[in-house]
């Protein structure tokens, strides 16, 4: 291990604490020496020190592209972050199947779709379909899951109707292609509609997509959000653990009810 001070972590180039980073962006100005200067000024406003344009190029008249190397002297206290459980230990398929058998004792029902105008089913297919993604099978392949993949461009109303019909334990929504925050509109609408149906508390509501984060998901009223780098077993672990937890707490409360009598 290196002797990094976890209370004072900086970007690393080739020496500890050198703070070296690379940024690239376009400015809507004519390509010129003045434009390079402007790019460096922007980098300074980002809080970077000694910015140097190492490559710049005219994209078309009035638009210039820059690659800049600079030093970032800001640091973060990593110790503070470590305890906030960003890194979850995920289970593999067998362990998840065992968990469902032992703690839940029935298959979990999951309904998923790519909703709204999104025509891309790649995300939801990767999570739900048998073939999965990158060698990891999707939930359809798990013994403990019963899955319904409604595909792409599914209206929120159709997704909800299906979830109610099959008494889903979890709803998974995927938003792949998004621009100008369209995905946020689709995602919040689903939450609103579920609440209007009085069904929000009956299901685990999960969203996923390249621009979705767990933080964003929670902010929008979802139970969890999964993004880039997520594999089917991550989602499966989450659902199985949450459901096991739910089942346990129901058992505990009914036990208590018995005691109370």
């Amino acid at each position, binding site marked *: 291990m290196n002797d990094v001070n976890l209370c004072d972590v900086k970007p690393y180039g080739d020496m500890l604490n050198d703070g070296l980073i690379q940024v*690239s*962006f*376009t400015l809507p100005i004519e390509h010129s020496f003045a434009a390079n200067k402007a790019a460096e000024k922007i980098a300074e406003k980002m809080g970077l020190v000694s910015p140097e344009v190492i490559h710049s*190029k*005219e*994209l*078309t*008249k*009035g*638009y210039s*592209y820059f690659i800049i190397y600079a030093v970032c002297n800001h640091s973060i206290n990593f110790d503070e972050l470590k305890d906030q459980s960003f890194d979850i230990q995920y289970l593999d398929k067998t362990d998840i199947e065992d968990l469902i058998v032992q703690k839940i004792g029935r298959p979990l029902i999951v309904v998923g779709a790519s909703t709204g*105008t*999104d*025509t891309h*089913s*790649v995300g939801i*297919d990767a999570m739900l379909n048998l*073939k999965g993604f*990158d060698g990891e099978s999707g939930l359809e392949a798990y013994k403990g899951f019963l899955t319904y993949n409604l*595909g*792409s*461009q599914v209206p929120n109303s159709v997704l909800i109707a299906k979830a109610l019909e099959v008494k889903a334990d979890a709803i998974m929504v995927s938003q792949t*292609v*998004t*621009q*100008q925050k*369209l995905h946020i509109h689709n995602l919040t609408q689903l939450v609103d509609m579920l609440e209007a149906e009085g069904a929000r508390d009956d299901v685990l509501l999960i969203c996923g997509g*390249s*621009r979705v984060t767990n933080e964003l998901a929670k902010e929008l009223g979802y139970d969890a959000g999964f993004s*880039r*780098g997520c594999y089917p077993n991550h989602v499966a672990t989450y659902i199985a653990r949450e459901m096991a937890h739910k089942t346990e707490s129901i058992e505990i409360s009914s036990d208590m009810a018995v005691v109370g009598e």
Partner: protein
Amino acid sequence: MISKLNLDEKTVELCHKSAQKVVSDVLRDVEGKTTFSIERAIVRLLGVDGVNEFDHPYPNLLIEHVNENGGINDGVSYWLGNAVIHTGKPPQEIADAVVKGELSLFDLPMAEHAEIREKMFSMAQECLDTLKKFHVSRSKFADKFPEIPQPYIYVLTATGSVYEDVVHGLAVAEHGGDIVAVIRSTAQSLYDFVPYGATEEGFGGTFATQENFRIMRKSLDEWAEKNNKYMMLSSFCSGLCMPEIAVMGVIEGLDNMVNDALYGILYRDINMVRTLVDQQFSRKVNGFFGITINTGEDNYPRTSDSPSTPASIVASEMVNYHLAKNAGVAEKNMGLGNAFEIHPGVTNGFLYEWAQAQLTRDLFPGCPVKYMPPTKHMDGNLMRTHACDTLFNLVTVGTQQGIQTIGVPTEGIFTPHIHDRVLGLENTNYVFNFAKNFGDEIEFKQDGIIQGHAQSVLSEASEILMNMAENGLYKSIENRVFGNVSRREDEGKGQEGIVDKSDIYFNPFEELMKDDKDERCQFM
């Protein structure tokens, strides 16, 4: 031309024969049908355009009027032609009066059928002549500039605003792109109308409207004049308004259109009969005016991991080829689709990609095959994506594909930014130049990995096509032959827009374009 892959000629022939059978069965089935969108395309060709105060397009309102009065089976040509005879007004004025509620096409005395037909045919001929003249002048304009060598470099823009697309389009032109294709706003394919005017608020793309086409065309033409290089313009002739978009493209001088026969069925869940009827008319229009069409087989590997996917691509190319041929599209205007989508971790994946790309090239030597970049396995590591794109570019130039959609490093993260497109172009230019004649210099080892893979894909494709010839296209789609997607004949969007033709139905443009085949303008 059976070339580098040592393909079995009999198998190739069998593929073509089976595909022809599949296609002739489909065409027999859709022959007696038209659609709302085809009828709207007819009135657009006759000059009907504009929207009412609720932004409802005149072509839609006019066709709805005919439908509500029970006349749609006779075709709009019949009812509109009668109105022209009785009012002496051009179609646009008639549409205007109908929209404003000042005129009903059904309150007029009816002229003789033959007279209506004659009137409409002469009007349609006039429209075609005007458009032909326009296309000859476009052709002359393009010919002023140096010829553009293939592979044509095809680059997307997708900002949502036509004015930003202009900027992106110019950046593409500056950096060696040959074709600018403006991606449509997400879900436009499911609109059963074409939006109107210049638009600035699309999602994941910009609405295809006639005004947007005009704005892009004008800016690329101006750039061409200044820089002595012609720039081609492309859009998406697909979805529920496929025939209308074809007409709009012809009117505004587009060079290229995505126009797949099956894509809408598989990936937009549009009813298969609707799509197949629509694609025939749209392809007749594109074919007549020499607009290059691109097909969408590149999507299959994105939705299917099955080992038979490469074979299903070949089978689909065969079906698309024969559907296009029947619609009068010249081989040089058929950009049949394929993609570089094998997982980057597969050992010798490059050799399989090469074999598949070469196979399409060799099966359709007269067609400018349209080759698509890796996207499915691009995981946000833009440096790796850039590396994959380099090999993709090498396959493109080495197998002499006709049209290449460039790969962009930020593929799979978001709608690429302007500089991402330029980085993609720089990679393409580098490889296309650095390895320009590589393809001419190489042959493949007899029965080596590349030949073996191509041969086995072809033989599997011939089996798929033989089964399809027996079961028919509809049943085969239901059985997930393409992209592992299943659709049923009686399901899907847009079914309500399918119309059975009555005995007196006629579509003057369809008939005139068919009779005028020898004079077809071949623009590009």
